[in-house]
């Protein structure tokens, strides 16, 4: 799930307030996905690029009004969905057609200029920040090129907004299944870069499972088709999806469309302990039911939601609730819903409520989807995390997360995709309090370590970007990180595409054995 953590009004304030003077001490509530400082990019600095000359060359391609070089006009691009991190691009360029995109990429390649592709900027890992390099905005490439209702596919440009695609194919009884909570703003190109998920990817799969073919522009300006290798070939497209903008830029992509379900049933189960809610999650999955979505919210989250304008009617005295949705053919769906209720009650649910109509369903979902926004009211800052554990570890890990929080004098709010084991432990805090910030920093580190120890991972859907770089060494071996650099080098040997992201650069070493293997040529 990729989520815009601030409501649009707050985002405008970010843009309005942001300046060099206030950049690190904003006066408005801000949301960060981590309390961690960003590690400095240890890579050798790129060859100096003559920004003025480059801007001139790019303006010759896209027109002067689609190139930004002045500090003031670039301010809005200095952060993404993670306003806690800010980086200033040297310039920004916005191609308006595929031909312009290719020409821009070639112009960048010609002078060896690094660049960062960006869609709507809703990412939550700092992945779309350009630190003194060119920001390549793709939002003008927003044409839906083809819809094939019979084959259930659509071909789109990278800047098409996720929800716009679903809206365009709705008349055919189809939708685009990956539904990150930022779907009204985020773009398909960005979804591919992050391998975005969403609440309904429990049943329907993540972006990777819905991408069939793409045309990409490699960092050197070469335009190539990519597919999944079904007709005899490497799964280059599979490797490309989730590469966080480090492998190249999507020019167009063909995605799978999913038929709308015949019927949907939404349930809200109410528990007196988080452990019971986590157990119910495990029981539902183990019972062989595959809900479309299975989300958990704990007491702190319920309280924040119910105190906000997004009040969804969650029981305020519950320790946790599960929001569960089953969908599919009408036949058999009530039996699935009944089985979900049985498992919830078996795990100790105090009550299970079924949404009576679409209005109640929408209200229950709104509380979930706006939970992060609701938390913004509770404290000046919010650290949002993203980690995954095996589903049977949920109850234990959640309990230990509370213990870790208590030890640091912090309150942890949990709202997450329980069915996938995908945690989002959020910590409201005051960044103006250095002592508390230090505790948040340390608590997050301990929580990540606990998730890794449980056999889990450090990000399920937000991506590594800049934010998760400090954890990569703890999760993956040096050889694995080195191999990831190798994979990147296949697509981007000059490492100009989104430099310094995803894999700590120090992990990329030349494999000395290879030289001797090739007969001693260095």
């Amino acid at each position: 799930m990729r989520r815009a953590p601030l409501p649009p009004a707050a985002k405008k304030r970010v843009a309005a307030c942001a300046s060099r003077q206030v950049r690190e001490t904003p006066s408005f509530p801000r949301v960060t996905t981590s309390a961690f400082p960003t590690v400095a990019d240890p890579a050798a600095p790129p060859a100096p690029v003559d920004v003025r000359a480059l801007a001139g060359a790019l303006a010759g391609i896209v027109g002067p009004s689609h190139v930004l070089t002045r500090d003031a006009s670039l301010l809005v691009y200095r952060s993404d969905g993670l306003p806690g991190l800010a980086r200033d691009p040297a310039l920004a360029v916005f191609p308006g057609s595929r031909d312009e995109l290719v020409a821009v990429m070639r112009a960048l390649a010609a002078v060896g200029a690094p660049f960062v592709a960006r869609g709507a900027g809703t990412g939550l890992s700092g992945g779309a920040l350009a630190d003194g390099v060119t920001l390549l905005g793709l939002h003008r490439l927003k044409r839906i090129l083809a819809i094939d209702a019979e084959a259930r596919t659509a071909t789109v440009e990278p800047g098409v907004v996720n929800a716009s695609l679903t809206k365009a194919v709705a008349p055919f009884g189809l939708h685009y299944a990956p539904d990150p909570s930022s779907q009204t703003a985020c773009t398909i190109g960005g979804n591919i870069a992050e391998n975005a998920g969403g609440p309904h990817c429990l049943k329907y799969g993540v972006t990777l499972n819905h991408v069939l073919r793409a045309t990409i522009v490699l960092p050197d300006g070469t335009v190539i088709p990519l597919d999944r290798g079904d007709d005899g070939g490497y799964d280059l497209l599979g490797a490309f999806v989730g590469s966080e903008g480090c492998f190249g830029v999507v020019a167009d992509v063909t995605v799978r469309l999913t038929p709308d379900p015949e019927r949907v049933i939404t349930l809200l189960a109410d528990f007196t302990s988080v452990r019971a809610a986590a157990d119910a999650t495990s029981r539902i999955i183990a019972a062989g039911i595959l809900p479309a979505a299975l989300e958990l919210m704990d007491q702190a989250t319920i309280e924040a939601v119910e105190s906000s304008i997004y009040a969804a009617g969650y029981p305020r005295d519950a320790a946790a609730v599960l929001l569960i949705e089953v969908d599919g053919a009408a036949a058999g769906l009530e039996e699935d819903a009944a089985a979900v209720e049985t498992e919830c009650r078996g795990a100790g649910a105090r009550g299970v409520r079924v949404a009576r109509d679409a209005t109640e369903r929408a209200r229950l979902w709104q509380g979930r989807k706006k939970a992060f926004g609701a938390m913004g009211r509770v404290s000046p800052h919010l650290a949002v995390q993203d980690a995954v554990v095996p589903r049977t570890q949920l109850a234990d890990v959640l309990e230990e997360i509370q213990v870790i929080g208590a030890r640091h004098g912090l309150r942890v709010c949990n709202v997450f995709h329980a069915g996938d084991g995908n945690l989002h432990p959020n910590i409201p805090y005051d960044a103006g309090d250095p002592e508390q910030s230090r505790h948040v920093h340390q608590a997050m580190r301990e929580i990540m370590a606990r998730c890794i120890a449980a056999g889990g991972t450090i990000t399920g859907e937000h991506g590594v970007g800049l934010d998760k770089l400090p954890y990569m060494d703890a999760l993956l071996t040096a050889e694995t990180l080195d191999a990831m650099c190798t994979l990147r080098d296949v697509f981007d040997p000059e490492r100009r595409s989104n430099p310094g992201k995803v894999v700590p650069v120090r992990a990329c070493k030349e494999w000395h054995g290879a030289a001797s293997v090739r007969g001693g040529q260095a």
Partner: protein
Amino acid sequence: MSDQPRNVRELAGLVRDAATRSAATRDAGLRIEGAGTWMDSGHPVRAGVTLSVGAMRGIVAYTPADLTITVDAATTLAELDAATREHGQWCPLLPWGDDRGTVGATVATATAGPFAESLGRPRDLVLGVEAVDGMGRVLGAGGRVVKNVAGFDLTRAITGSWGTLAVIARLHLRLRSRPAVDESWAMVMDDARDTPGGVSRNDPGAALREFSRGPHAPLAMLDLAREDAAALALPAGTRALVRIGGNGAFVAASRAALQSTAGATAVAVEPATWDRVRTRLAPGDRALTWRWDALSRRLRERFDPARVLNPGLLGEEG
């Protein structure tokens, strides 16, 4: 000559040795083998040594409630099926061919089967991989969780690469619950439409295709040639085989739809029929036409610069 490593460290050592030897000899190449039921790609492999991962076999970790399993590469599909069946689960790789083949080979060749549309292809079911690349690096990507975007996706690159980027040592796989009710139906078509010149008013084939695209999408639907029915011991005139699975009410509705297909009669058959189908109707060996574009060549070159992993298998030397 044959090598049989017992674990990933030994495997890495053997690959590294081969890569080093390759500077001096053209016979350093390794023919990677699992159960030995080698799938022919139609291209000769130039390898002086057979590297069998056959000893790396067995269930490593299995927590049924997580619906994930970790197995060593040479675990057979039959072993995987038996271990998971006990808990009402399966790993629906169910590729064309029989269950003596290994999980590693299925993933290495990305061999799907008749259930791929509904239950997923190998690439959809593989959550993570431990493998040794052509330089002897041990790579561990992905893991026992169902969502994971930490780093670049080595798992997808290795899946379906026919062992030419890395030798698979261990796999983390997604499992699914077996459907509570699981029925298979042979669809016996009326004779009229097959009579030369005679045109049936009904088109049961079209009706079945419509059925399979609707809310009652089956686990599998397979069109059969006339001669297949006898070979598979199915009722005469069977022209399609359908498998439906789900809870009782869902399957009842699906069954009713099949039974009301105009121009065809639904006859119940054993789900085991599909094992015969997978073996008998497996596409025969044919020369694999690999797409060797610049990116693919670079991928091969960077992960196996000494060309020791299954050299020639994908026709790249041709």
